[in-house]
């Protein structure tokens, strides 16, 4: 596996640290040959999902929340996984509804998987440039 085939890191537990994650993801997308418009859409979708994972006040039962982005032949897949459940969560602010709406609008496909301890959000965005 070469260096640019996947991007993987732990999501910080503070919102203040998110801009650093954004820079790293942006760099990886550029190195992976993703065109700027698609890259910015992916960065925003991932940012909103990560912010949601950091903000929802659930006691985490497992290890860190992680983000893994993979360059695929026709697009990019991003998976954000955490050990909390979103099901009964009400954010202290009502802002997150808009965030997830925005995330969904940025990608071709967004699914939330909750069939195990924790939650995974899978984002997929097509790219014009092939991998």
């Amino acid at each position, binding site marked *: 596996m070469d260096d640019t085939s996947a991007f993987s890191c732990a999501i910080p537990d503070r*919102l*203040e640290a*998110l*801009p650093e994650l*954004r820079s790293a993801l942006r760099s990886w997308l550029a190195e992976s040959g993703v065109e700027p418009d698609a890259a*910015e859409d992916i*960065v*925003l979708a991932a*940012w*909103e999902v990560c*912010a949601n994972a950091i903000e929802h006040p659930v006691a985490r039962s497992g290890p860190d929340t992680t983000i893994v982005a993979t360059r695929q032949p026709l697009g990019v897949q991003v998976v954000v996984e955490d050990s909390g459940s979103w099901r009964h969560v009400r954010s202290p602010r009502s*802002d*997150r509804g*808009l*965030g997830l*709406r*925005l995330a969904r*609008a940025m990608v071709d496909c967004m699914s939330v998987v909750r069939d195990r301890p924790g939650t995974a959000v899978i984002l997929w965005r097509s790219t014009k440039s092939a991998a």
Partner: protein
Amino acid sequence: MALDEERRVTEPAIVELSGGLDLASVARWEAEVGKAGTGSGTVVLDLTGVDFLDSAGVHGLFRMLAGLDAQGKRLVVVAPREGRARRLLEILDLQRLVVMCESREEALGNRW
């Protein structure tokens, strides 16, 4: 002359943003706009240099709008068509809620 006096009093204040309007920076920009609004009837918020807008930024934008509106003041947003800010507001179908201009010249050229 009375009209000139009036216009001088309400000369728009310009706040130029750059970089991100997001959860990390929105509080700072809201404070800037609040300050600008104290001495002016109209605040022109120039988003041309904004390369990242997130949902927290969108909420902030509407708080700025509501805050000025409550004082009988206006917020005019400069967001060029090809920019990220305009695109996101259009995707969210929120563009009609804000007065949006293509350029700062357009924003200042109109009488609000």
